[in-house]
């Protein structure tokens, strides 16, 4: 992912948020990202909201195995064990 050398505008920054949060930006890109953030309330808010979004998504519960699938697999296990 490359960014123009000099400026990074807000519209470009929002497209780099995931790479930024994933630690995938080069050190140069990261510096430009951080210096834009330091001077821009809108983008600071956006990045903060993205962090909250990720945090809240992590609070969703993970699906459970259905009893039917569990039963079928238990039977398969016992068959295998008995071989």
């Amino acid at each position, binding site marked *: *992912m490359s960014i123009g050398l000099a400026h990074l*505008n*807000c*519209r*470009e920054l*929002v*497209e780099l*948020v*995931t*790479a930024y949060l*994933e630690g*995938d930006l080069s050190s140069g890109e990261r510096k430009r990202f951080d210096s834009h953030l330091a001077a*821009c*309330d*809108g*983008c600071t*808010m*956006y990045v903060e*909201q*993205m962090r*909250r*979004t*990720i945090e*809240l*998504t*992590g*609070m*969703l519960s*993970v*699906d*459970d*195995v259905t009893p039917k*699938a*569990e039963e*079928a*697999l*238990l039977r*398969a*296990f*016992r068959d*295998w*064990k008995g071989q």
Partner: protein
Amino acid sequence: MEQLLSAHDAKLVERLRARDEDTFMELIRELNPSLLRVARMFVPTAAVAEDVVQETWLAVLNGIDRFEGRSSLKTWIFRILTNTAKTRGERERRSVPFSALETEDSGYEPAVERSRFTGTGHWAVLPRAWPEDKLLAGETLSVIEHAIERLPQTQRTVITLRDVEGWTADEVRNALELSETNQRVLLHRARAKVRNALEQYLSEEQ
């Protein structure tokens, strides 16, 4: 072999080899929902995905004595799943060719609507602070859940594995056979849409 595996994995493998039923059932509860989710990416129906997952577990049992521990147990299980699902998907013929995964939604999808920016790319309308009390109310999670349900399947799968189930980027890339860039683009689009759904919900009149 064992030194390449985490202590946790080494113990699991040892117990599975000893035909320990509780260990197997624990593993099923931990991995089955994700296995189904991933299988669904390669085959046309939920019923076929269930078959594929069942077949995968049998292959895990039959292969555990020969498992060499060159990857984590989870990675190994998902590799078996992917191979099984792809074979089955090809046989079914109706399945979407897997390369479609990477191109399904490759059109330009801005994270934030263009109208939110000025011609020079600066915020025309700044994002507004979210009201904390409303954010922490119970409904917020169902707003997120619905936003995820509305995503295209690949984006939904990636954000669920990453942000709900806590997988690493590498685990997701391996299981879904995505490039680094594609994994990140899918996650990026999914997260942006979930944030937008939250923004919309939080800006509605109470």
